[in-house]
Every structure is written in structure tokens, then in C-alpha cells.
């Protein structure tokens, strides 16, 4: 399968994949006009140590694209400025012929026929340069990309300094104290000052406890829910007992991720030895299934990294998970915060072509829709192609569905979604804590 430049530029899903994979060339003069001073800081620069910028493509599609010249010099895509408007186009000499990764050739296009796509550039937020009132640099706490804010109240993970560490993980092994709750609230406030943040993702690693980090996250979630109408997602490891999953929902989390990362059992053990040994794949699946009975449809997600196992295995994962009521999220493997697995000879890699990726995300979208799973909890994420963005690979969308997707993605739509999520919790959850006299 091959795609012409026009096809790619005209399809936000394809363009997002291309920009994430190949990056965006920006003329030095244009680059200087953008405030990219925060683009290289640790935390924001997910793709190695290169600088990234967040761009809003047509149809509300967010993408984080690498822009460092040494990374993107081979990219056919470039950012141009026309008056006050930013546009993405393809360089005629480099990209008139867009080769599919499999080597198929499409017809050449004349330069004047290459479309220019209007986009909105969101320079890296000052978030990354600021600190909380108590002096904690925000870049230590988390990262913000467009509407998506990810925070880690603690970087502690019992696997980090051991052989059990996940092979793709780039988190520093130096443990730091948990960030005060007030600082997390302040971080969200700062992020919302300049970005339309509508989802907070709280992540926690392996803390050596049976609760999957729920106790640790509880005051943070409570404080966030107290101060903001915002969707809160928790990214944790499955707890030993399902009661903790009830508590995760009861304490205010709107969505939960238990990330298996790799669906293939043997590769899971190899790439994620800690979670495989201590928790086990079976418990991951159990916890995910149980969580679907607690959280709202689409509120239970599981990352499967694309490129670290055969696509057939990923597809099997999509089918199994969606059948259980879990929404798979498929990030493409990238060196993460400086950790590059490409040097690991014992890890087999399966780099998909653009055509294969398009087909994979289309299948993901169809499976999620066929199983009637909600898509609103995992959307507008700049660093990964979301299941909802799989619609760009599935032909012409239904008008009403498209309208609904757009409306729920607006600021007021997201706020309403957070309110409805809170209402659902208020209706479904009963606090049965026995208060000791």
C-alpha cells in the first residue's frame, strides 16, 4: 500500500503518524519565531533528547513532532508561515514521490499540487521552565502536550534499580520524595493557564505494596477532583485485590490503565520482567476485566507497544482486550526519555510500515466500535495515535458520529464529560468504610 503526499497531508491520521515517525522540518528563521526554548527539556522531549513541538492538525488532531534538525533532516514535511498562519506542506524535491516503507512508488506530484495544511503550533509550554511555590521544578513532576497533562507524584518504582526494570523505561533510577499534594494542584493550575488541559494522567510505578499505588495516589486524586472539573486517569500496576480497583474508582479516578505493554506472553516476560514476575500476565488480564465492571465504558485502557512484538500478536491483543471491554492504546515504540532499546541485541523489533500502521489503527477503531466501547477517555493525546483517531483510516465517517466526536472534544464537551463521570460515580459508589470508634 502506498500513499501520495496529498493523501497524507489530507488525512490527519496519516499525517500524525508521519510527523511522529519522521519529524517536521522548520526553517531556522521560523523556528526562532516560535518560542521553543522549553522544547528540549527532559520530560517534554519524549523522543530521545530532541526537541519537540505540539501541533494541532485539522479535525482536532494533536501531534507531538520532533523538530531537532539532526533528527528531521530526512523528513519531507516542513512548516511554513504565510502571514499569521502556520502551514504544513511537503518539500517537492524530497517528497514529490512519497515512498511507502515497503518500497512501493506512487505517482509524482508537481510542487504546486502539494497541498498546504493549516495547523496551530503550540510552542512548548512555559510549564517546563517553571517551578511550584515550594521550589519543585514542574518538569520533574510531569509533562504537558496540548490538552493532555501527565503527572507522576513520585518517580519511585521498585523495579528501576534492578534487573526487573522494564527494558524500554527511561525513568531515572534515583528515587525522589513524593511531591506534596498542593504542588500537584499548582502544577495543574499552571498548565491550564496556557494550555487547554482537559485530562490529567497520574502515573505510579511499582511501590512494593499490594494496593497498586492506590493509597499513595488517593490524596492527589481527591485534591484534583476538589479543585477542577477535569477527567483524571490513573496509570498503575494491577493491585493484588479487586477491592483496590473499587477504591480507585471510588476515590475519584475516571479511567484506569493497567498497561500490559506487550501482549505476547514470552516477550512480555522478557521486556517487562518485573511486572511479569511480581504481578503476572494473568493478574493483569483479571484486573483489567474486573475494572471494566467498575469504570465506565472506555474507562479501562491498556497500552500495547507497537513494534516490540509481531503485528499479529498486537492484533490478537486488540481482539482479546476489546472483547473484555478494555480499550487498547497503541503507542509506537520510540526511545523514551533517552532510553533507546535499539542497542539491545536480544530484543527483536518489528518496525511497521505506514500502511501496516494505518491498517492496525483501522482495525483497532473498528473493534472498539463493534464492542461499543467509549472513546472519550482516551483522546486528544499528542504523543500517541488514539483509538478515536483510527477513524481516519476507516473511510468516510458517519456525519452524526463525527459531529458527536467533535462536540465531546470541545472544552465544554470535556468539562461536561468530567461532570457526568462524577455523577456516575456519585450514583454507583457507596462508601462502606467501617469507622472504628
Amino acid at each position: 500500500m502506498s500513499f501520495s503526499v496529498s493523501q497524507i497531508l489530507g488525512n490527519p491520521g496519516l499525517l500524525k503518524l508521519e510527523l511522529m515517525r519522521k519529524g517536521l522540518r522548520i526553517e531556522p528563521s521560523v523556528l526562532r519565531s516560535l518560542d521553543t526554548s522549553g522544547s528540549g527539556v527532559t520530560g517534554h522531549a519524549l523522543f530521545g533528547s530532541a526537541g519537540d513541538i505540539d501541533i494541532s492538525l485539522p479535525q482536532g488532531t494533536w501531534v507531538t513532532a520532533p523538530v531537532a534538525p539532526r533528527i528531521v533532516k530526512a523528513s519531507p514535511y516542513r512548516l511554513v508561515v504565510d502571514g499569521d498562519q502556520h502551514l504544513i506542506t511537503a518539500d517537492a524535491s524530497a517528497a514529490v514521490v512519497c515512498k511507502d516503507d515497503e518500497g512501493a512508488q506512487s505517482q509524482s506530484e508537481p510542487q504546486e499540487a502539494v497541498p498546504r495544511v493549516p495547523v496551530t503550533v503550540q510552542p512548548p509550554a512555559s510549564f517546563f521552565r517553571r517551578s511550584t511555590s515550594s521550589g519543585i521544578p514542574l518538569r520533574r513532576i510531569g509533562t504537558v502536550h496540548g490538552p493532555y497533562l501527565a503527572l507522576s507524584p513520585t518517580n519511585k518504582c521498585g523495579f528501576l534499580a534492578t534487573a526487573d526494570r522494564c527494558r524500554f523505561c527511561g525513568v531515572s533510577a534515583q528515587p525522589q520524595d513524593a511531591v506534596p499534594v498542593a504542588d500537584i494542584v499548582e502544577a495543574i493550575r499552571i498548565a491550564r493557564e496556557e494550555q487547554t488541559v482537559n485530562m490529567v494522567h497520574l502515573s505510579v510505578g511499582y511501590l512494593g505494596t499490594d494496593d497498586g499505588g492506590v493509597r499513595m495516589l488517593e490524596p492527589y486524586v481527591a485534591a484534583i477532583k476538589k479543585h477542577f472539573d477535569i477527567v483524571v486517569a490513573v496509570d498503575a500496576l494491577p493491585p493484588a485485590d479487586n477491592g483496590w480497583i473499587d477504591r480507585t474508582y471510588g476515590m475519584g479516578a475516571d479511567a484506569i490503565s493497567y498497561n500490559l505493554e506487550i501482549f505476547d506472553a514470552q516477550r512480555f516476560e522478557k521486556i517487562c520482567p518485573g511486572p511479569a514476575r511480581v504481578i503476572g500476565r494473568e493478574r493483569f488480564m483479571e484486573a483489567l476485566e474486573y475494572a471494566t465492571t467498575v469504570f465506565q465504558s472506555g474507562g479501562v485502557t491498556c497500552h500495547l507497544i507497537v513494534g516490540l512484538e509481531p503485528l499479529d500478536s498486537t492484533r490478537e491483543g486488540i481482539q482479546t482486550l476489546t472483547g473484555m471491554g478494555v480499550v487498547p492504546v497503541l503507542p509506537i515504540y520510540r526511545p523514551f526519555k533517552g532510553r533507546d532499546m535499539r542497542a539491545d541485541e536480544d530484543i527483536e523489533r518489528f518496525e511497521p510500515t505506514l500502511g501496516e500502521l494505518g491498517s492496525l489503527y483501522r482495525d483497532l477503531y473498528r473493534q472498539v466500535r463493534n464492542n461499543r466501547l467509549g472513546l472519550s477517555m482516551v483522546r486528544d493525546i499528542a504523543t500517541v495515535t488514539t483509538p478515536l483517531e483510527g477513524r481516519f483510516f476507516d473511510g468516510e465517517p458517519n456525519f452524526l458520529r463525527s459531529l458527536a466526536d467533535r462536540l465531546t472534544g470541545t472544552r465544554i464537551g470535556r468539562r461536561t464529560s468530567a461532570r457526568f463521570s462524577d455523577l456516575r460515580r456519585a450514583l454507583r459508589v457507596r462508601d462502606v468504610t467501617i469507622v472504628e470508634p
Partner: protein
Amino acid sequence: MSTQPEPDNRRFEIDRRPITVVLLARIWKQLLLLGLIGLLVVLLQLTAPTGLSPQGYKALIIFAFCAILWATSLLPLAITSLFAMALLPLAGVMSAQETYSYFGSRVVFFLMGALMLSAAMIATGISKRFATVVVRRFGATPGRLVTSVFLLCAFGSSMMSAHAVGVMVLPIVVDITRALGLRPLRSNLGKALCFSLAWGCVIGGSLTVLGGARGPLAIGIVEEFSGGAQTIGFVQYMLYGLPMVVGMLLVTLFTLKVVFPPEISDTRGALKVLESNLEQMGKVTARELVVGVIMVATVLMWAFAGDTLGLDTIAIIAMSALFLLRAVTWREVQEEVNWGLILMYGGAICLSAAMAHTGAALWLTELVFADGVSSPQMLLIVIALASALLTEFMSNSAVVAMLLPPTLSLAQANGIDLAAAAMTVVLPSNFAFMFPISTPVTALAWSVGFYTPRQVAVTGAALHAVGFGFMVILITLYWPAVGLI
């Protein structure tokens, strides 16, 4: 910024039913209430039926609306009453000035004083000491133990709210059952003690006007209905129901002894515990003494000077004396008094006045009893039966608030003494024997775990029948004999 630390053992239950079912289960009351309000608005727009003035029609609609709310507890009783007070001027039944003036009824202040006296007794601990002393003094055998608990509860609830007495005596009963090692659901003595607690409180509450808030409410409604021309005095109230109360006490005590013969003969263990409890209380404090003296003096004043000074005036003087002598603090009174009860009564009296003054009550009763009642006595028996049945499903105060206004109109039309009519409603409204939910004391006694709801229903039904039998005797023999009807 700080967040409240959550308990480490925090647990949640997730309701997994379909969300529409969960939603309906959570808001059906609100939906029903909205539906009722909608119906109220529509009905208020309709034309009054023949024989009823527009104001009377509206008063009747508002009354029916409140009766449903009282019966179903869709809103707290007090809020329903306040709602009624707002609706009356809104619908044009009475002016706002007139409506709210009924809240200043004398009986509201009497009730407030009585509740404050009761609060002082609980706060100072004199009521608990008295109960413990009585049971320890007279509980030498299992039979006497049951009798002392029963009579203590009956006497106590004739002086203060039955609920307060139940709360006070319950720990004593629990201590006794534990000290004697009585087995839940098995022990006859355990059953007898718990039933003594529940039924003693229920029956004793009918003796005086202090035994529950329904008495003052009935007096207030009678006073408002008659424009202040008639009331029911403290002693008069006692005399109306005395034979029934005494009779029921005797029958019930006999029943307890026969149906639940005690399986043990030695009560020394229980007496030792009560002895220890008394030691822990220490000597009688000055505060207890002052409250005790004021309480006795107040009851005597109500009995012998109530008609001349007024029950309300005596109550307020007693209440002031409590504070003057520093026997109780405002905080203690504030915590112990059920202020919602006072609000409920103010509104109910106001609504009954509206029913009476607009002719709605008379119209309603004539409609219901136009052809079916052959004599005044039969009429009272039918009303007593309605009151006795309703009270098993709704609070006795709500029964009085609902049933009394039309009953008074009917009584007036049939030449029946208003006081007799009021007592016909009030006395059976206390027959809440059958279900643990009927009154708070029944639920309290049931919570100890010695009998099942079925046993409450069976024995309660029998007592209910006995009580109604006594009521018929009152209406047909006693009241005519003493010239009440």
C-alpha cells in the same frame, strides 16, 4: 492547602445495575415529589366542587398534598409543614400575616418547654440514674426484672418522649442480658425484657400529654379550631385515657409473663452490673438534683395549675429556671432537643386552622361520612380504627396532623365534644406495636436481637387488637359514663 487524610481501611461498594435503574433508585422520591408538585399546581387551577369555597378547595388540596408527604416521608415532616405554610398564602387561602401567626400557637411553646426539660434530664444523667436505681431496686427475680423495666419505661414515657426513654433504658437492658448470658433469639427472658422496653414506652406514652409530641399537637389543633374556646388540660388529658392505659399495662404485663416465662431464676449477675454502673456514676450531682426538683415541680404545676396558668407558661418558667439555676447549658439543650418537631407542629397547626376556617374539613368529613355512620359513638369508633391502622405505617404525629382537622369538623357537626374527638384520634395513634419500623422505640428494642420481625408482628397484632378493644370500651362505656360524650 491540606487534604483530609482518608482512613486506611476505606472501602467502596459499586452498584453494577444498569445506570438507569441506579438513577431511578436514587431519585424516585424526587421524581415522585416533582410529580406531586405538578399535580398540586394543576389541581389548584381547577374550579372548586359544589358546596366548597375556592379557598376551602385550595386548602383541601394543600392538605391532601401534605398528608401524602407526611405519610410517605418524601420530605422530612418539619419541611412538609413549613412547605404547607408557604403554600397557603401562595395559593391565596390565607394572608401570609395570618398564616405565620399560627406558628405562635401556645402549644408550640409548651412543646418547646417540655422538650427542653427532657433534654435537661438526659444531659445531666438524672434519667439514667433513676432508671438504673429502679431496676436494681426492684429486679430481684427475673419476673420482677421484667416488671420493673416495663413499668419504668411506661412511667418514663409518660413524663418525656418515648424515644428518649428508650434510648436511656436500652443500655440497661443490654447490660442485663449480657450479664445474665441470655442468648439472642432463644432466651425468653431476653425477649420479655426487650418487649417490656418497647411496649412499656409505647403504652406509657398515652398516659399524659408529655408522653409524645402528638398530645400537644392535638391540643394545639383543638385550640385553633375552636378559636381558643376549648382546650384539653393536663389532668383532663390523663383522665380521658387512664382506663385504657392501665388496662393495657395489666394485660401486657400478664402477656409478657405468660408468653415468655423466664428460663433462669437468678438475677444476681445483672444486679451486680447495675451496681457497678451506679458506682461509676458517683454521687448525685447538684445539677441532677436541681433538674429533678424542677421536673417534679413542673409536673405538679401542670397538674394543679395548668388550667389557670397555662401549660405553656409553666413550661417556659420551668425552662427559664433551668438556666437561671445553671442546671443545664444552652449547648446541651441545643443538642438534645428535636427542633424539627417544633417546626412540624407549627406548620401542622397552621394547616389545620386553614382547613377549619375555610370549611374544607367539614366538607370533607360530610362527604366521607354522609350516610355511613349511625351514631356519634359509631363515628368515633370508625375514626379510632382509621387512626389505629394508619399509625402502623406512618408516624403518630403525622396521623394526628392528617386525621384530626376533618375529625373536629365532623365532631362539631355531630355535636360531639371536641376534646373527645381529639382523644379518639390521639390515643389509637399510639398503637404502633406491629412493625419494628412503626416507632423508634420498637426499632431500638428489636435491634438488641432477641426477637424477629415476625414475632413483633404477631404479638404486636394481638396487642393492637387489645388496645382497640379498650378504645371501644372508652368510647362506648367510659366516656359516656363520665359525661364526656
